[in-house]
């Protein structure tokens, strides 16, 4: 048995480099298209590189966590979790409490994560219950649930605070004594602004050069070890691309460092990046556990999962709760960078932007990886940064660029959902024909 499967994998792995490239381009047609659009945008925006890199880095570090929260529900077959909005509300409850208690800085940040978690767990459980009752319509349900929760959230913060919930803090409550203020400043002495970003910062290109060198080395060592063991099983193409990418990262960073350009002033918030990296690792590692396999089985086919003894509803609930908690934390990371909490606005568009990002990275309703999430964040936010300026230079109107990016975020979701539905229908038809 083992031999046969070994032979099989060897066969599969031995694909010529040309077909590999073709398949890569096909699988990544969406990201490739948007890489081209982004490059055009960058060119026509005529913005200085330092500005783009700096803004992009800020946006990547503050948004990636939220987008990574989308991965698990997709694998568990719940589709794109529009309920991120609900998690974000939990995060904002945490921020409000911490601001009320006047705990600032890094302890405040940790406290915020801790306090928002129970809210997020409860919200996640409620959303999961709803989604388990609306199987097959999860995405629209989670979206409407987000709208509904937004109403409830406003009701609590605008009308219950000061009447039923006795908070008298003048920093938070409106002057009439009822309701939380529209904007809450997090830059005060006890504020959360940069509470994790500022923990440890280091020039970006030094770090990138280091990462490039280390990954390059790992790839080479890995290749040597593997080819000694079983040379025919090695997919050369994979190693070459990996080596080229790490070499390129190393080369570019070294060039930047040597040339002494302005780009050297760009610093990376290391602690935030580490959090994102941990989440990435979590998303990868959980798939190697029993629970991760359950996610995959349930996501693949609920009936088969049920027959093979997996508790479908429970598995889906766990995926939703994890995603909601991560969304809450992601919102805290997002807002500590922004520095002001717009009580009734910060969370509203969060799911749309996160979902548009992951789709731009090449994910679909049924398949998503953390890598796609990060690539998508980079593309989406590049588009965000350059499109007003590019619109201005190309059409003489910055508005057109802004409208274009709004259209892209809705349009890409629409197209992805449409394609998914179409695909699902074709598969259903095929199954009918088979039976």
């Amino acid at each position, binding site marked *: 048995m083992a031999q046969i499967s070994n032979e099989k994998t060897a066969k599969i792995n031995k694909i010529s480099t040309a077909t590999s490239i073709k398949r890569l381009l096909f699988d990544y047609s969406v990201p490739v298209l948007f890489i081209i659009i982004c490059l055009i945008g960058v060119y026509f925006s005529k913005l200085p590189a330092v500005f783009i890199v700096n803004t992009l880095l800020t946006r990547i570090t503050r948004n990636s966590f939220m987008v990574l929260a989308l991965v698990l529900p997709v694998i568990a077959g719940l589709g794109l979790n529009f309920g991120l909005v609900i998690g974000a509300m939990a995060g904002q409850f945490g921020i409000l409490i911490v601001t009320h208690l006047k705990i600032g800085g890094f302890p405040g940040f940790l406290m915020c994560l801790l306090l928002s978690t129970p809210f997020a767990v409860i919200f996640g459980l409620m959303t999961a219950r709803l989604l388990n*009752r609306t199987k097959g319509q999860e995405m629209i349900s989670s979206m409407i649930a987000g709208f509904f929760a937004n109403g409830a959230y406003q009701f609590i913060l605008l009308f219950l605070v000061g009447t039923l919930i006795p908070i008298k803090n003048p920093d938070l409550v409106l002057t009439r004594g009822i309701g939380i203020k529209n904007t809450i400043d997090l830059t005060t002495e006890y504020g959360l602004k940069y509470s994790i970003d500022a923990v440890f910062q280091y020039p970006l290109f030094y770090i990138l050069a280091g990462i490039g060198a280390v990954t390059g080395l790992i790839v080479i060592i890995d290749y040597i070890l593997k080819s000694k063991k079983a040379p025919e099983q090695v997919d050369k193409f994979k190693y070459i691309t990996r080596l080229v990418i790490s070499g390129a990262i190393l080369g570019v960073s070294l060039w930047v460092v040597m040339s002494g350009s302005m780009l050297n002033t760009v610093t990376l918030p290391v602690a935030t990046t580490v959090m994102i990296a941990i989440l990435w690792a979590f998303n990868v590692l959980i798939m190697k556990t029993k629970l991760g396999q359950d996610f995959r089985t349930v996501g693949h086919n609920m009936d088969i999962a049920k027959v093979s003894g997996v508790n479908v509803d429970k598995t889906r609930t766990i995926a939703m709760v994890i995603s909601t908690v991560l969304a809450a934390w992601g919102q805290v990371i997002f807002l500590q960078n922004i520095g002001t909490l717009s009580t009734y606005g910060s969370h509203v568009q969060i799911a749309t932007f996160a979902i548009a990002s992951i789709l731009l990275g090449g994910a679909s309703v049924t398949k998503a990886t953390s890598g796609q999430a990060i690539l998508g964040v980079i593309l989406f936010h590049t588009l965000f940064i350059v499109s007003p300026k590019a619109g201005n230079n190309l059409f003489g109107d910055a508005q057109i660029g802004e409208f274009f990016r709004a259209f892209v975020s809705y349009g890409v979701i629409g197209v992805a959902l449409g394609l998914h*539905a179409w695909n699902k229908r074709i598969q259903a038809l095929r199954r009918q024909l088979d039976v």
Partner: protein
Amino acid sequence: MNKFIKKIGLPRLIITLLFVAICISAVVLKLPFGMLASDVIRRFGMFGVLALAMVPSIQCGTGPNFALPIGIICGLLGSLIAIEVGLTSKALGYGFISSVLISLPLAVLTGWVYGLLLNKIKGSEMLVATYTGFSIVSFMQIGWVTLPFRHPEMIWPIGRGLRVTVSLDSTFGEVLNRFWGFKIGSVYIPTGLLLFFFGCCAAVWLFSRSKSGTEMYAAGANPKFAAAAGINVDKNRVLGTILSTVIGAVGIIVYSLSFGYLQLYLAPLYMAFPAVAAVLIGGASTRKVKISHVLIGTFLFQGMLTIAVPVANQMFPEGNLSEVLRQIVQNGIILYALTKVGGES
């Protein structure tokens, strides 16, 4: 008791109770009755046609038309073209009739294309519809800036593109409301508006009694059975979508007319949701709807929201309680309907 609740439907019961409670508090707060009643009637007629657009789409089996913004955009374009070209004479209802006539072919065409799309994605209509609507609205934002409209009342005096709201004062604003309008005591009855709304309802009802209407209903109610009986299901779904889009286009013109402004840019983005909520409150489900659901639902939902504004303002002068109430009720009812879909399949 349980039977009674089941017959009326839990959500309808809750909303009715809420409506009654708000009405009572309006009386207790001594709010001017005449003004409130006039407002309720006006909003009833104003939103009614938009809610009516849900009927053909639910009957033909594509579910509530969350892509109503497609029809809305057609209606807005029709009105803008009518005003731009100057078809606003008295004989043309100061532009109302011409707006409807111009938007009809647009709506038929887009409805047809959209109907074909819906046939490709059976089973996920609601979600795809929502995002189709969002995409069209955000795409038309570019359109409102770049389309070559020149009429000074519509474009910004400085800069490019159409205004965010285009006033209809000099054209067909309130023209239906004033048609045969009269006052009973302090309550203003916008006869033309109501007649038009009831006329539309009657037309849809008559259509559903006709041969093609029955066919469409059969195709929606049980596609497999209908196909076996020789009915072309896909064609009927397209027909329903076209009708829904057309009614949506007419609906937004009636809405704008009564409102006094055409609202462009992001305004149509969420307009499908109150319309969907209205028919659901009236007792419809995502698979079944009657004209009476439209009438009852629009009256309850819009009436409740209209009266809630002054009541809420008396209780909480700041903060928009009635807007929050709208969000909770509107999305709560849609969620409730969605859980029922899941239960069936």
